[in-house]
């Protein structure tokens, strides 16, 4: 892990020149090409899609410093489906947040296609979150004031200014409708989150995460609040997305059965990587 990390960071340093202005277009371009299977296979060996390297992170609670991550790292290739398991407090959510730029590491780096992204300016980080990452949370986190359709459209509303949104509003709406159809919620678009069931809300949250066409889906206990049947449905949706759309998924869970659905399971204990289990069969 350590060796690999340093090699990548050397590459990243060589890569640093044209950066950061045309960072986003380049990733968009790559994601388009990645629809084909073959270039992904070749890229896979050289540059992982995302890697978090030797992350250390601690929180200050009152006067005490509570360490959460001690040099934990995680690397995901394009199209990979990774489960992160561990006990409560093992730092798995924090690792996910650091990878998704919701939080910044005290020590360590987060690389996206070999380029460091954790030290970018706030506005670039906001844009990356909007374009590259899709989040799913345990408590769905849909905005209670908006209808399901509006919730799903939110990432694109954030992306576009008022004018360009107005120009593209039909297109965006159609896009949202398509995605909602995909997750089987087209009949609930006018409903508020409070009028939906847990499974519906989570599927709505997945739809919201997908509308921005992210590179990486970061799921924080997506089934944690659902019964096993509904959780199974959600997991099916996720696996399907991973298989059909080659969506890279990093999922945090403490449910072993759920974790088994992934290609690979990363175990975290006390802020460190314990084991990495490969399971090619999904």
């Amino acid at each position, binding site marked *: 892990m350590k060796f690999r990390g340093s090699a990548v960071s050397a590459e990243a340093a060589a890569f640093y020149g044209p950066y950061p202005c045309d960072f986003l277009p380049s990733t968009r371009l790559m994601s388009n090409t990645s629809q084909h299977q073959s270039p992904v296979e070749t890229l896979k060996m050289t540059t992982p899609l995302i890697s978090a390297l030797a992350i250390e992170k601690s929180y200050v609670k009152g006067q005490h410093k509570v360490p959460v991550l001690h040099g934990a790292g995680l690397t995901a290739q394009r199209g990979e489906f990774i489960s992160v398991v561990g006990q409560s407090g093992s730092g798995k959510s924090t690792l996910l947040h650091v990878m998704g730029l919701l939080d910044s590491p005290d020590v360590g780096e987060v690389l996206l296609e070999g380029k460091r992204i954790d030290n970018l300016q706030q506005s670039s980080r906001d844009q990356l979150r909007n374009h590259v990452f899709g989040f799913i949370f345990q408590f769905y986190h849909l905005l209670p004031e908006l209808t399901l359709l509006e919730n799903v459209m939110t990432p694109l509303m*954030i992306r576009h200014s008022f004018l360009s949104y107005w120009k593209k509003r039909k297109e965006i709406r159609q896009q949202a409708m398509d995605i909602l159809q995909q997750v089987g919620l087209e009949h609930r678009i006018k409903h508020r989150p409070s009028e939906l069931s847990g499974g519906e809300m989570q599927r709505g949250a997945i739809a919201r995460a997908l509308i921005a066409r992210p590179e990486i889906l970061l799921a924080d206990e997506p089934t944690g609040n659902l019964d096993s049947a509904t959780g199974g449905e959600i997991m099916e949706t996720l696996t399907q997305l991973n298989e059909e759309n080659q969506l890279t998924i990093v999922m945090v869970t403490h449910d072993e059965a759920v974790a088994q659905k992934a290609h690979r399971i990363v175990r975290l204990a006390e802020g460190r990587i314990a084991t990495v289990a490969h399971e090619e069969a999904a």
Partner: protein
Amino acid sequence: MYKILLCLRYLRTRYIALASIVSVMLGVATMIVVNSVMAGFTNEMRDRIHGFLADVVVESRSMSGILDSQRQMATVQGAAGEFIAAMTPTVEVPAMITYSDPVSGERFTQSIQLVGIDPGGKAQVGPLKTYLDSYNSIIDEGEVLRRPLRPADTDPGWELTDHAKTYRRMMKQQQMLFLQEETPLTGIPVPAPQFEGQPASGPASDDDVAPPVFSDTPENAVATDEAPVAPPDFDMPFQSSSQAEAAADPTAPLSARVFLGEQITSFQARDPETGKLHKVNMVNPGDDILITTIQSDTPPEPISFSATVVDMFRSGMSEYDGQLVLMNLEELQRNRGMILNGEDAITSIQIKLHNYDDSDEVVKRLRAAFPPGTVTVSTWEAKQGLLLSAVEVETAILNVLLFMIIAVAGFGILAIFFMIVVEKTRDIGILKSLGASSKGVMSIFLSYGLGLGVVGSAAGVAIGLLFVHYINEIEDGLSWITGRKVFDEKIYYFFEIPTQVNPLMVMWVALGAIAIAVLASVLPARRASRLHPVRALRYE
């Protein structure tokens, strides 16, 4: 885009925001109502202050005045004639009046300002007719108690109304009866006129009476009566009892006539039964009063004479109504010895302009036209500067106080917004995880504040304007509910609450309220924008 959507959605769904809107609305409405009423009152006040003052007044510096009113007016005409609509000469002197309360017989003496006018001329330079009691109805609580005694199209003059004549005749006859039956000795102290030897320019100088003797006594009436106007065709039921005075009509009014400021001889009394305030007049038109003033000689000698009250006037300004006594000009000039060799002296000329905006130019020209040191030329605003600035200061202070109301609403918004930010912490985290920038989150809350301000102001403006428009109906309603008059026209002299809506003021109030709402949302919005997304998401 999401900012606008969320902001609108928050406005619609957060009922707690309604409290902010209501507080902004109430503040704005109150400010508009109070400002409009204040402006209405101020306007009315200005009109009333202006009331007895002409636009521009030329005043002599000495009490004896300047000679030859015709020539002085010609000077004025020559200097600034093109601006002048009308002018009238007047004589203004400090004086005292003495009158007795008809009920208790008690005698009162009061200092006043005596103004000699020509009613026709005075009516041209300012409103006189509308102020005179006999041209107005008496209205009490919406009921007309008395119709105008004179038709509105007649010019004001020194004639008594029929009403006053009847009253005077009645009073005189009562007095004569009373004197003959009970105090037959009153005839003895017929006073020798003390102030004789005035320049005998007038046709009669026989109107002087001794100060200690009250003018209502028939002796004085006899002594002073020259009956120039009283028609002899009175029906006299007690003629037989007063044969001695038959030659001259004892009930005819005196040659000195006055309009009395209505507050001089009246007071407000509370009816012991109903508890209502009502006005008690101690002197009525047709009564005689005694006036004491000074002659125009140096050093000034005091003089006294009796005068018949022709009318009462009410300008609505207590400065005037409690101070001024208007008298026929020639009579005052004669009494003060201001007529010399056919030339009459005056103390001031009141001038009405076509357009008051020219007043500065007129004042400048008139100052140049008169020899230095003889006259003072001033506009009415300069003469009443203190009063006017007091009104302005009052308005300004009230505005500051009222703006604090809106500031209170601002703090309400601040508190409510902090609550909303706490409530929305999770949503803020979600938005940030979806890529919303801190600025974006901040602008949600700023535009939320703006929205509250705009909605609150709009509602406040609407309510305020409606309130102002229906203020008299509202006042009636309140009076009906509380059972006592909220706005007593007897105290304020207005039949309606005067209002004046100034569009600029409304605009400023609305803008100020919106600005306060936005300012109050700055702190919560900053706090929201600085929330750490992870911490916000953890918030359950």
